[in-house]
């Protein structure tokens, strides 16, 4: 209207006026900008339509199995890719409930399991049913979505922690049912109901269901690793495209509004309970689809693939990628599965990358430093300090002991190598003793590990330059403990501990996740 002042930014506003707000009008200019090459690259990227980027990435992913040969190493590589895509599917599904609608659903793993067990029951020797893949997938996905509705129905009024507890209970119930489901008696009435035995074996109990069919449809059978890679990639592409359309729709908006402020959403007459049920149902359907793929890929369904530990990993993927972001869910899944779960293994049989776990650790530390430490001068000072500290320690140890720096890099159990020029760098940065944790006395290495934990705890208490100074020996000690002690243990639980530690640090540096939107509130 006429008396609303025009919104052009004026050089010197005479006083506060509605409609003229310099700060907001110029927020785009104030946003952090990148000059030079990064800025130009970003500008070019932003002009490319998003579907084109999407197709390009899909095409790149589709090339992976083509480039892989039939050697064991390469088949392993393709398998890791397939598993990463299954996790991507799971992360996309979980993102609907957690990221879009903001429901802390800890029972999600049950739908994954329902998908896997459902497919295993319908397409295996278990009950002699050998349904075609498309038949059992449709049935299992629909059943799982309905189960999602049914479980969400009693908990639809719960939010936050309360919902988490109830859904965690559902998730655990599934695990109990599956592990105990090899002696089911329908209220002890089996004989009366006309069954021929007192106890029925439905789930195979702790042994699970083996000999599950490969995906078979219309006379074709997917049997190679490549085939499963493409099947899973197709599923991810379809689900991703579908969810990004939903996200832009009225329903997607309502989900996000619900997550942000469910009372305000209700005041817009958004049917919040129905939307919650739908979010859980859609997530359950996607999880079930992932379950059927996993079941056919492993040719079996086993209880421990569907327990809370796996749930936590899926959550880690969604949170790392940034809850609410579809790209984030996929990237989070690939990063966690490929880099952390597989990459942290000390000896994965990928051609010559014999110590890739090492590179993940050093790369991870470096990445976190680059992300977390802002003025580059400070970063350079810390990195320089780390290198100098190592060289000085190495020199002192070399001068005062006889075999204190003669250690080699541990690349496999009982295997020590020089490790090329990068190995040379590591050996001259860290003072590796000739007797390692595995060979000689364990005490100094255990003290080093305890010292590392103490240093990390101290780091959280300090601020400013003191923290920067303490960071230097901490990073060095982390490298030392990794090389002497953790590298061999990284195939077990230590890997998950490291994953957790990396996640904590990364989330502290970037709480919204890699692709999440940070919350901006100026009120």
């Amino acid at each position, binding site marked *: 209207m006429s008396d*609303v002042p025009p919104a052009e930014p004026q050089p010197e506003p005479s006083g506060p006026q509605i409609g003229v707000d310099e700060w907001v009008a110029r927020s785009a200019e104030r946003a952090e900008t990148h000059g030079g090459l990064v800025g130009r690259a970003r500008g070019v990227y932003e002009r490319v339509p998003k579907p084109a980027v999407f197709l390009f990435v899909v095409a790149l992913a589709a090339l992976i199995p083509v480039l892989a040969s039939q050697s064991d190493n390469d088949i392993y590589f393709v398998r890791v890719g397939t598993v990463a895509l299954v996790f991507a599917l799971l992360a996309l599904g979980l993102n609907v409930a957690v990221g879009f609608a903001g429901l802390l659903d800890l029972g999600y793993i049950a739908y994954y399991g329902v998908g896997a067990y459902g497919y295993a029951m319908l397409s295996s020797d278990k009950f002699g049913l050998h349904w075609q893949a498309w038949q059992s997938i449709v049935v299992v996905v629909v059943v799982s979505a309905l189960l999602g509705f049914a479980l969400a129905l009693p908990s639809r009024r719960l939010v936050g922690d309360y919902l988490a507890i109830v859904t965690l209970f559902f998730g655990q119930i599934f695990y109990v049912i599956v592990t105990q489901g090899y002696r089911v008696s329908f209220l002890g009435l089996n004989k009366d109901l006309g069954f021929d035995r007192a106890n029925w074996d439905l789930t195979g109990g702790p042994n699970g269901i083996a000999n599950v069919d490969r995906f078979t449809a219309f006379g074709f059978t997917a049997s190679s690793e490549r085939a499963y890679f493409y099947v899973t990639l197709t599923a991810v592409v379809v689900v991703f495209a579908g969810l990004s359309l939903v996200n832009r729709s009225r329903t997607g908006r309502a989900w996000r509004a619900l997550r942000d402020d469910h*009372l305000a959403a209700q005041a817009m007459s958004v049917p919040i309970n129905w939307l919650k049920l739908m979010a859980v149902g859609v997530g359950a359907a996607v999880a079930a689809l992932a379950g059927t793929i996993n079941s056919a890929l492993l040719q079996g369904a086993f209880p421990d693939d569907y327990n809370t530990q796996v749930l936590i990993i899926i959550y880690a993927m969604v949170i790392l990628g940034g809850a609410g972001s579809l790209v984030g869910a996929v990237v989070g899944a690939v990063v966690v599965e490929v880099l952390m779960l597989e990459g942290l293994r000390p000896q994965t049989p990928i051609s010559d990358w014999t110590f890739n776990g090492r590179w993940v650790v050093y790369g991870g530390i470096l990445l976190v430093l680059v992300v977390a430490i802002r003025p580059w001068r400070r970063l350079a000072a810390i990195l320089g300090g780390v290198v100098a500290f190592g060289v000085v320690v190495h020199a002192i140890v070399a001068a005062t002991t006889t075999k204190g720096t003669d250690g080699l890099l541990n690349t496999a159990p009982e295997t020590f190598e020089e490790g090329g020029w990068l190995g040379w760098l590591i050996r001259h940065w860290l003072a590796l003793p000739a007797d390692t944790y595995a060979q000689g006395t364990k005490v100094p290495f255990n003290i080093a590990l305890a010292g590392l934990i103490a240093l990390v705890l101290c780091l959280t208490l300090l601020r400013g330059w003191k923290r920067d100074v303490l960071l230097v020996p901490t990073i060095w000690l982390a490298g030392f403990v990794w090389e002497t002690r953790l590298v061999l243990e990284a195939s077990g639980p230590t890997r998950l501990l490291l994953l957790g530690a990396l996640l904590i640090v990364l989330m502290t540096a970037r709480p919204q996740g890699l692709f999440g939107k940070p919350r901006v509130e100026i009120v």
Partner: protein
Amino acid sequence: MSESTNGSSVLLRLEGVNTFYGQMHILQDTNLSVAEGELVCLLGGNASGKSTTLKTVLGIVRPRSGTVTFADEDITSRSTSYRIRKGMAIVPENRRLFGPMTVLENLQMGAYLHGGGEPEDYERVYSLFPLVYERRSQLAGTLSGGEQQMVAMGRALMARPKLMLMDEPSMGLAPILVERSFEIIQQVHQAGVAMLIVEQNANVSLSIADRGYVLSTGRIVLEGKAAELIQNEDLRKAYLGR
């Protein structure tokens, strides 16, 4: 009592409403009405029952006795979403925009019932608030308080309301912005929307209102034409008292 002032029909009527929070008797035998196209303000100090009245109108809180009538229909036991479908919209206390969503998405949420809104809905909002148009692709959470107030009103207008409920529109705004804000409320009102405004700021709200009610500890202690109320000596005492 609940007669309309200018002869037009009554849009909203609360009759003998008693509302409780558990054991606490909040609204006590409250009678209130808003005629079509009328601007009514509801004044009162803290804990006088202003917000509870709004919640009762919207159906977030159900009265233990009494009736709520809207557009000649008894809606006492109807759900919030039913009432909104019937033509109510609210500008909540503190505006409560969806911060991580853009201004446009906030407007689309306002028009949720109409599938995201028709072009006419957007034209209406944009012509009332040209600034909202300029900010449409910005995240609502990044706007200043005054701008958020406009987006919140625009969002409410997207639902094509017959009655707009406003909860403390002056809250959190600088004094000079409060006056501007009420001018905008007046504009929206002149566009033909009936309004029920809950406010602590008696002077500003009575200056634009047709009628006013003053609540004190859950009872309506004063009511009348805004022009008369503003002269009332007891008003200050009544609405400042607890």
